[in-house]
Structure formats: C-alpha cells, structure tokens
C-alpha cells in the first residue's frame, strides 16, 4: 500500500485531496530532485516519432524557405516600385506572419527534431543527441556566415536609401536572419535524418 502511494502522480495526489504544499512536501520526502519535481508539476507533452520520410521533410524545407524568400522579394520589389507609399510599412506585419508560419511548421511540432526537444537532452538517446549536436554545429557555421553578411548589408541599405525605405529593407534582412536563427538547427536535422523505420 505504501509502495503504491509512493508512485502516485501530482494529479492523483490532488484527487486524494492533498493540498499543493503537502504534495510538495511528499515529493521532497520521496527524495525527488528539483528537476523531477518541476517535471511532475508541469509535465511536458509527449514527443512523437512521426517525422515523415526524408523526401517529404526535404520538400517541406524547400517549400517553407522558398515561400518565405519569395514573399520577402515580392514585398521588397513592391515597396521599391512605389517609394514612400504605405505598402512599405505593410510589408512588416506580413513578414511577421510569414515568420510565424515557418516557426509553426518547424519550431513547434512535437516530433523529436522540433525546437521543443532541442532545448534539452530529455527524451533523446545518444544517437539523437549526436545528431542534434551536429545539426547545431552546422547551423552555427551557416548562421555565423549569414550574420556577417547581413549586418553590413543592412547598414548599407539604410545608408544608401533615404527615408523609411532603407529601414524597411533592413527590417526584411532582420526578419530573414530571425527566421533562420529560429529554425536552422531543426531544418538541418530534418534534412539529414534518414527515413524512419517501422517500430515492429
């Protein structure tokens, strides 16, 4: 009976009428670490193995990035064609939405290659940790090059173009850097991960 009680989760203890402070005291009595207590109170949603075939993932990478850059190019060309018009400023919220869509596709999915899992080693075995680290290393190399390119470019467009057009162009560069910063490790991992195997 005592063994069963020791296995009860936070929700089950609550159902038995225990208050939060008593549950916390019980967890400490069980010798749970701070991390274990935190996980028990705020359990993470499960991660899934459904990552799709490599062909599907690669197509998705190309589709999301190509769509984003096409949209940015169209907005830039439109704002250049109509200098001083309000369309330049309207481009910015559209890019915020576009960034949100790309993030939604790559950042918030509950697969083991998503950003949620990238934040810690939890739920990853040695192969996945290795692949995650490789993806981060490669993303860092690519991203460093892009930032070194984007930084002087954004200054140059601001200096070269008077009025708010320069700022709009610089913001587009900033959004491109932001979307890559937040998705590049996941996208690299998704690109490289082999086709999934059958669980049986």
């Amino acid at each position, binding site marked *: 009976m005592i063994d069963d009680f020791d296995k009860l989760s936070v929700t089950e203890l609550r159902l038995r009428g225990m208050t939060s402070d008593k549950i916390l005291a019980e967890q400490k009595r069980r010798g749970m670490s701070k991390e274990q207590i935190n996980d028990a109170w705020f359990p993470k949603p499960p991660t899934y*193995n459904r990552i799709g075939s490599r062909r599907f993932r690669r197509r998705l990478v190309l589709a999301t990035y190509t769509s984003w850059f096409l949209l940015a190019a169209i907005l830039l060309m439109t704002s250049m064609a109509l200098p001083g018009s309000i369309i330049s400023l309207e481009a910015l919220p559209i890019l915020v939405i576009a960034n949100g869509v790309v993030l939604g596709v790559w950042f918030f999915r509950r697969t*083991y290659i998503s950003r949620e899992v990238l934040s810690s080693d939890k739920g*990853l*075995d*040695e*192969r*996945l940790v290795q692949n995650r680290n490789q993806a981060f290393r490669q993303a860092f190399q690519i991203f460093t090059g892009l930032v070194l390119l984007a930084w002087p470019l954004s200054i140059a467009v601001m200096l070269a173009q008077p009025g708010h057009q320069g700022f709009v162009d610089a913001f587009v560069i900033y959004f491109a850097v932001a979307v890559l910063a937040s998705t590049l490790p996941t996208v690299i991992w998704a690109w490289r991960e*082999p086709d*999934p*195997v*059958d*669980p*049986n």
Partner: protein
Amino acid sequence: MLRAERDLSRQRFADALGVNYQTIGYLERGDYNPSLELAFRIAEYFGLPLEAVFSRQPFAPMSSQLYRKEDSA
C-alpha cells in the same frame, strides 16, 4: 537478426534499452555505430559476448559457418 530470432519488436527492444526505436532501426541497417556503453547494454541484453553481436567486418552467413565447422570436424 538477434532481435528477430527472439521475436522482439523494435519498440520493445528500444524500451528495454532506453533508446528511441528509430535508433534500433538505424543500428540494424548499419547507419549508426553505437557507443561502447550502448553496445555493452545490447550484448548484455542478449546474454552474448560483444564480439558475437558487433563486428567491424560483416558477419558471414550462418550456413557457411556451420558447414565450415562440420568440414573441419
């Protein structure tokens, strides 16, 4: 091969070893080389020496090994 002999699913084997079942698949396909720790865990799970489970050279077919033994005996 060893897993199939014991009628183990990748999922069950992976759960027993504490790894993702995809990792078991990649190990079987030769797409991933395990750490020494995982290699020992797998060998211990099957109750076999490490060299019976892993080899740097591809394993010879069982039939050829059996017939060679019979020839030498």
